[in-house]
């Protein structure tokens, strides 16, 4: 029996590896995606353009504008001349925000009256706008503190010491790359499994397999193991690039990461086989796999925290293996997560793997009769 399964595994691996295009697809895109996305996926907002309409002629307003111009967040601070240009600058998305200083600004400051400055933000880029608003608040607060200190009246307000653990400079790549290991492995692992059965069905070679001495469970093992090998290989490739080329620190235990990977890939393959036991064609298999992948990615906590999601959606995330793997991967990479904490995220994935694999076996057997 093991002999037969081994032959099938070798055949499956050869089928994937022999075609130069399939081979290229297994290696090139994950690497390119890893590199491009790890640099692109940042919530930081830098190098955005700001426009300023300064109707005041005094020194204080010029000083404030200069502080904006020298801030590291803006690539360009453009001066507007007329009020009408404000709408134009925002409408055309030329600037993400316009700072408007009224003509009474310097007079108000001199008189000790609170002076308003307006910051008009482009709500179409709501997220970036919010961050820019935060920058502007800080710049104005620092300006205020200096004005007060120059007056020598009161102590400037105390500041919070904010520190980030595990990633002191909040380098976005350190957080995204461990997450991408899960994403890219799932994308490839699921499509490889979902397609392997569907392709044979479509080409009619599946019947040949069935008349061979292989039993359904043996065929299933023969389909799962190659996908498992491909998945582990893929993850290893990404891991090596992440640490050696992208400089993401790895402080935890490699054994724990691989334990997490093994269970995660088993769960992914379970879903893939489940899909392939339902569908008749490759097209259906790919689209089915994708219908699982897109929500799994969105609900994994990779982009937004799971706590942010509404209560009724929370139970759905419990069935998402990527949710658990993202915690393990980030934890082992950056936080030296220990066995006890890894295990808490390991067993839900094991349950998912068990359920999907047995469901796939059952469906598979039933469709053969």
């Amino acid at each position, binding site marked *: 029996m093991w002999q037969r399964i081994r032959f099938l595994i070798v055949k499956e691996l050869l089928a994937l590896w022999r075609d130069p*295009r399939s081979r290229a*697809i297994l290696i090139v*895109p994950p690497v390119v*995606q890893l590199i491009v996305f790890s640099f692109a996926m*940042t*919530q930081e907002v830098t190098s955005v353009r700001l426009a300023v309409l300064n109707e005041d002629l005094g020194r204080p307003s010029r000083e404030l504008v200069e502080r904006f111009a020298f801030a590291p967040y803006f690539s360009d601070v453009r001066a507007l001349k007329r009020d009408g240009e404000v709408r134009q600058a925002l409408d*055309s998305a*030329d600037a993400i925000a316009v700072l408007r200083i009224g003509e009474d600004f310097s007079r108000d*400051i001199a008189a000790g009256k609170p*002076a*308003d*400055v*307006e*910051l008009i933000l*482009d*709500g*179409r*880029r709501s*997220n970036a*706008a919010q*961050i820019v*608003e*935060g920058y502007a608040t800080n710049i*104005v607060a620092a300006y*205020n503190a200096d*004005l007060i200190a120059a007056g020598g009246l009161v102590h*400037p*307000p*105390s500041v919070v010491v*904010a520190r*980030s*653990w*595990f*990633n002191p400079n*909040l380098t976005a790549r350190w*957080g995204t790359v*461990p997450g991408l290991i899960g994403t890219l492995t799932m994308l490839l692992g699921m*499509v*490889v499994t979902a397609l392997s059965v569907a*392709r044979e069905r479509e080409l009619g070679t599946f019947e040949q397999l069935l008349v061979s001495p292989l039993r359904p469970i043996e065929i299933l093992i023969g389909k799962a193991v190659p996908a498992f090998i491909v998945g582990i290989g893929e993850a290893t490739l990404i891991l090596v690039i992440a640490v050696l080329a992208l400089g993401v620190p790895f402080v935890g235990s490699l054994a724990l990461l691989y334990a997490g990977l093994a269970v995660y890939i088993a769960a992914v393959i379970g879903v893939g086989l489940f899909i392939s036991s339902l569908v008749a*064609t490759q*097209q*259906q298999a*790919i*689209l089915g796999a*994708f*219908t699982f992948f*897109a*929500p799994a990615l969105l609900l994994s906590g990779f*982009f*937004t*925290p799971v*706590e942010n*999601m509404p209560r009724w959606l929370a139970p759905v995330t419990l069935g998402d293996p990527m949710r658990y793997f993202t*915690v393990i991967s*980030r*934890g082992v990479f*950056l936080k030296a*997560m220990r066995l006890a*904490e890894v295990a808490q995220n390991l067993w839900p994935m094991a349950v998912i793997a068990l359920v999907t694999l047995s469901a796939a076996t059952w469906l598979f057997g039933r469709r053969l009769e």
Partner: protein
Amino acid sequence: MPKPPETSSAARRIGALVRKELLQVLRDPSSLLIGGVLPVLLLFLFGYGVSLDLQNIKVCVVVEQTSPMTTSFAASLAHSPFFSARWVRDRRQCEGDLVAGRIKGMVVLPASFQAYSMRSDDAPIQVLVDGSDTNTAGLVQNYLVGLWQNWLDEEQMMHAETMTPPVNLVPRIWYNPAHESRDFLLPGLVALNMTLVGTLLTALVVAREWERGTMEALMATPIGIVELLIGKITPYYLLGMAAMALSVGTTILVFQVPFRGSLLVLAGVSSVFLVAMLAIGLLISTIARNQFVASQAALILGFLPATMLSGFLFEIPSMPLPIRILTYALPARYFVPSLQTLFLAGDVRAVLQPNALAMGFIALIVLGAVARVTRLRLD
């Protein structure tokens, strides 16, 4: 028998091909999955599930010594909708939770809190965030610092330490005054849904024809290359526009996202985008010989860049230069801001015209490449 005029027979050939393709698409339940189910599913996930505003984020507050000040700060934290806080005496009680990812951050009020809280020479509180989840960590940090600043302002107001700041920043958000993240995410998602139909479905269906050899059979008929392209593109164009109508309808009617542009302009801009994406789908399927390669290529060239590199989730100006250059080749980069403008701002010519032209240019180049590659493959 008189020969029928050339144009009408071309139209008939195209019509027949379009009908065949449409039937093929509509008969397969997976087309319905990608054209109907998935767009709505994604809209609901983004509409309800993916919010970039913090809510109920679990944090741990370490109060080393209780005082009226700490109680007052605790109350303002407890009232905040952004956080759900747990209170402990010793920071060691929470450090494990931060490692395990059960909390996203810690606020430490040291025993010296009371004495120093009003002066700048010593920092009274510490904010520690989990840097392994960088996006959330940055947000949590900002929100906590903001919360502290507000509390401090109120506290000082009460203690009559007159500290009215000389300059007061008044933020105003145009187009989306409520900062509703749904309002700018869902228009971007429409682009994603059309990418799925345009690239993934087209690439798969046409790759199957090549895989099975029916493409060669088709080329043996009197149909010309341009007719073939029109015949292949039209059905998926119709399906893509249907998916768009469904997405736009759901966005406006179910999620109450305002639509300030005109539907005609929307249809025009969307058509240009869709043709570009269909052309990319055709090109992929012609080069890739099987559905596995075609599907992966469609995801890599269509879906993932539309998510990650279009400015939909991440700001393009903040990306490093080589990636920024890369985004110029992606139709989604032009379509996402067009949609956000049409939904939230209106028919702004300064945004829509250059973007539509850029997409049209990409469409022409890719269509030319498709015609060339198809001809080459048949020779």
